[in-house]
């Protein structure tokens, strides 16, 4: 019990250390670009495919249930509200956690095991500033972008399933969607949620990797911890943020 509270404290202090090192320096932009590529650009395929399939299946299941009430025209409403309010940020964050969170933790754990972090410290380069801060910032920047990609592909997937396969009228689909999703309340808050998820996920993944014991087992445990704890934290924060917003 005391160990987990101490762990939480270390996590918070690590977060403060990252925030203190956020000031840009020479060369930090190149590091950020590299991490944006690794963390963000290379996560687009999984997020896009995941979004498309989520849209397809939600459209299918939603149509089946709504048509028992004769309300199949409300499919756009169902898809839009559930995507923007809950599924978009949460599922994109879970996919991101599985892909980019685990890779961040593994890279930092490997740097710790092969003494690269010690080498940086010996060259008077702050390892947190050099290795951790670009990954953290890349996660915070990439997460809302990935959520936008996820939602776009999910809505397109829902359209394909509803109109081409199930025979719903496209006008009903788009008008129900546009009428029920509010720009300020639903759309904007999806991005606020995803930015928070990105920050928390990046913090947990980089913490797990940076403080991993410098052994092979330590690195693999750090990767697992990053994904498991990150996923649980996303679900918990999603509930918290939804309770705050709505």
């Amino acid at each position, binding site marked *: 019990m005391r160990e987990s509270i101490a762990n939480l404290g270390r996590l918070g202090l690590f977060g403060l250390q990252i925030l203190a090192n956020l000031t840009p320096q020479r060369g930090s932009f190149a590091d950020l*670009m*590299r991490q*944006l*590529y690794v963390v*963000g*650009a*290379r996560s*687009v395929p999984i997020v896009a495919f995941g979004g498309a399939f989520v849209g397809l299946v939600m459209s299918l299941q939603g149509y089946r249930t709504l048509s028992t009430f004769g309300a199949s025209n409300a499919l756009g409403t169902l898809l*839009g509200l559930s995507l923007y309010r809950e599924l978009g940020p949460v599922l994109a964050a879970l996919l991101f956690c599985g892909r980019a969170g685990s890779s961040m933790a593994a890279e930092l754990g490997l740097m710790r095991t092969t003494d690269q972090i010690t080498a940086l410290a010996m060259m008077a380069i702050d390892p947190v500033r050099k290795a951790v801060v670009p990954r953290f910032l890349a996660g915070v920047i*990439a997460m*809302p*972008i*990935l959520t*936008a*990609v996820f*939602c*776009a592909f999910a*809505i397109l997937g829902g359209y394909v399933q509803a109109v081409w396969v199930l025979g719903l009228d496209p006008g009903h689909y*788009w008008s129900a*969607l*546009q*009428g*029920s*999703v*509010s*720009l300020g309340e*639903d*759309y904007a808050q999806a*991005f606020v949620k995803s930015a928070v998820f990105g920050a928390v996920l990046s913090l947990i993944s980089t913490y797990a990797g940076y403080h991993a014991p410098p052994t092979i087992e330590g690195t693999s445990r750090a990767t697992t911890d990053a994904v498991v704890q990150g996923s649980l934290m996303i679900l918990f924060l999603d509930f918290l943020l939804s309770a705050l917003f709505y």
Partner: protein
Amino acid sequence: MKLEIGVGAFIVLGFACALALAFASTDARGRLGGESYRLNARSSNLGELKLRAPVKIAGVKIGEVAAITLDPVAHDAVVTLNISRVAGDLSSDSSASIFTAGLLGERYVAIAPGGDVDALADGDEIIYTQSAIVLENLIGKYMFGNAKSPDAAAKPAPAPATPEEK
């Protein structure tokens, strides 16, 4: 080089998705209106009229409900409507009614134009209003309205369960 192209394409894709979503899947177009002015209307029962419910003339949306307040003296509901200038001038004897979209849909305000030469200005009140039709009142009228018909003298009228509303 491949790195920068990758990151650039990623960011462009994200913003393109976000913009496309904002216009194709939210009510953004409905919110970007032109000039508008405000009119008030009083009603004895609003039904389930909500904020930002549409205001329609001849079925075309020309505004929204901006505010709903209760007059503590007369105990009437005072509804403030945002009317777009696109709707032109409304004569001062226009009437506002609260209808339902579809059978059990959401409430909206329908304005029927009148014939007066004077036009309503910003801040004026629509005098002729019709309150919302509440389902329970209709059922009550049906149940207790039978007591007035000649058949009711033969059989006892049903005992009133709740006091009938105005």
